């Protein structure tokens, strides 16, 4: 590679594909060589296409190198070729377990540049969709972590609830997963009465379901012995390594963007930040369970206090007019035409907006050059940064603990690779 001689790059014994491995002959504690194994990209327990190159001394992990890029989709390049309103569709797909969070970070950033505030009903609907997705994302984490550690019932129970949430998504937006519900200027559509009814029943039923999950795992001796003391990440390390979300809160740091830098009306809801002082996999498990309970509380409050009013800003230059108006008003037809052929333009500038997703801080940095397509859309991916402490957490643990540690980081490879 021509770049291998660029200044500043030390020769770390690269072989072939730019991967660093231990040199042959490096001695381990028991007198044998370090064995390099490959947790390949195709692996049932790596939560996606993550490749880990692990140097083992017997059974203990001495060095760990994640190799990513197996799901690189070029979303940021794609966004530069799409109009502002079309980018919402691709934002759904990078952290594919939390589409509304991605949509929201993009929408907030664009709204900052446009200088608009959405109506309160839109804020409330956004909060509802986000909290529903937080629960569904934690359910996926819980189900897959459970089955990876042997508790296969967890998968069935968690996905049963997730099916209910996906039915609600379908009711409000027509899509089960990638709703594209939140877009700059408001939301896709108003909540139907059936949606509100489903949400009401969900809020009543969910706490009992969370109790069911806890009954299966929290005092389970196998689960406890596989997670307590495993994957320690002290609070200082977590802060220095930039971890956010349950990785940070599981180490005792009470940092949650919904409380520290609130957005979309989160300051009006009464909920607690879930933290745990244990700093290990078990602590993070407790944090996520508590977050699910707090999300149900927020949903109940949002549902009870749902304000009336429009769900979109009233700016015809940004959002299309309602269909009835197209029959009577020429101006509405012209706005509709312009929006769907050329798209709206956003004032020159740059803005960053972050939301607290199930994984941590998911943010969107948008740069506009005044045209109808973005100049640059950068997604600050929570999983990308949360994957870096993995080596620190896995050092000196056994190979069998690797699965628990990868699971606890709760990384979504779509987010890591974008």
């Amino acid at each position: 590679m021509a770049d291998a001689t660029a200044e500043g790059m030390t020769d770390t014994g690269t072989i072939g594909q730019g991967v660093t491995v231990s040199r042959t002959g490096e001695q381990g504690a028991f007198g044998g060589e370090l064995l390099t194994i490959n947790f390949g990209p195709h692996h049932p327990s790596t939560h996606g296409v993550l490749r880990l190159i692990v140097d083992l001394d017997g059974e203990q992990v001495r060095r760990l190198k994640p190799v990513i890029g197996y799901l690189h989709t070029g979303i940021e390049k794609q966004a530069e070729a799409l109009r502002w309103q079309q980018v919402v569709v691709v934002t759904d797909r990078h952290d594919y377990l939390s589409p509304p969070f991605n949509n929201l970070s993009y929408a907030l950033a664009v709204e900052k540049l446009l200088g608009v505030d959405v109506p309160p009903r839109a804020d409330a609907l956004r909060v509802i969709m986000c909290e529903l997705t937080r629960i569904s994302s934690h359910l996926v984490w819980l189900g897959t972590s459970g089955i990876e550690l042997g508790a296969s019932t967890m998968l069935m129970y968690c996905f049963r609830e997730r099916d209910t949430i996906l039915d609600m998504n379908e009711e409000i937006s027509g899509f089960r997963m990638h709703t594209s519900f939140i877009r700059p200027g408001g939301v896709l559509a108003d909540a139907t009465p059936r949606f509100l009814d489903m949400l009401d029943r969900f809020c009543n039923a969910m706490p009992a379901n969370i109790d069911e999950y806890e009954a299966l795992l929290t005092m389970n001796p196998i689960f406890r012995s596989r997670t307590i003391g495993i994957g320690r990440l002290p609070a200082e390390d977590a802060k220095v390594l930039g971890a956010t979300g349950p990785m940070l809160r599981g180490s005792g740091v009470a940092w949650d963007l919904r409380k520290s830098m609130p957005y979309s009306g989160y300051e009006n809801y009464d909920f607690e930040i879930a933290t745990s002082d244990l700093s290990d996999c078990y602590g993070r498990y407790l944090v996520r369970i508590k977050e699910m309970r707090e999300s149900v509380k927020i949903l109940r409050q949002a549902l009870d206090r749902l304000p009336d009013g429009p769900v979109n800003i009233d700016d015809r230059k940004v959002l299309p007019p309602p269909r009835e108006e197209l029959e009577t008003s020429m101006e509405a037809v012209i706005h509709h035409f312009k929006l769907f052929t050329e798209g709206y333009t956003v004032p020159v500038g740059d803005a960053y907006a972050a939301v607290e997703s199930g994984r941590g801080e998911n943010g969107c940095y948008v740069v506009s050059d005044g045209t109808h397509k973005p100049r640059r859309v950068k997604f600050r991916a929570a999983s990308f940064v949360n994957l870096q402490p993995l080596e620190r957490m896995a050092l000196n643990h056994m190979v069998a603990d690797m699965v628990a540690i990868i699971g606890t980081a709760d990384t979504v490879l779509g987010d890591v690779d974008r």
Partner: protein
Amino acid sequence: MIADSLIVEKGVSAGDAWVSVAPDSIHTALSGLRDDGFRLLVFLTCVDHLADSSKPTWPGRYELVYQLRNMETREQIRVRTFLDGDPPRIDSVHDLFPPANWDERETYDMFGVVFTNHPDLTRILMPDDWVGHPLRRDYPVGGEVVEFSEEHEVWQTPPPRA
């Protein structure tokens, strides 16, 4: 804070304060901010201003943007610097902010910015033998040509140079 001697320009954009520094002083500037409590590097990225007509002249083609946050006071600040050259070079800040390690690898992979003193500056998202830096503006979006689409020119051919 950053010493005033280092600041080239400053302003506020959509509610966020930003300062612009010269590329050689990025390490000093960020180090000063870190000592002041801005210990979290939120993100590090690059913007390619090729053929960008929103300003009459740009100080450099590549704009590196660092967003720092002070978790105690909730303040955020954006530090920018403009680079030129082929490849553009700048000091690495991974020793100040460990998350910058992978962020800089990604910026190198996508834009070709070389970060001096980086421990392992290799491609992270694209395959290791990939040629070219995809997020540069003169790199085409790629993919399949969409027939009968009037936009396929935009997708497949590089935009005109400034």
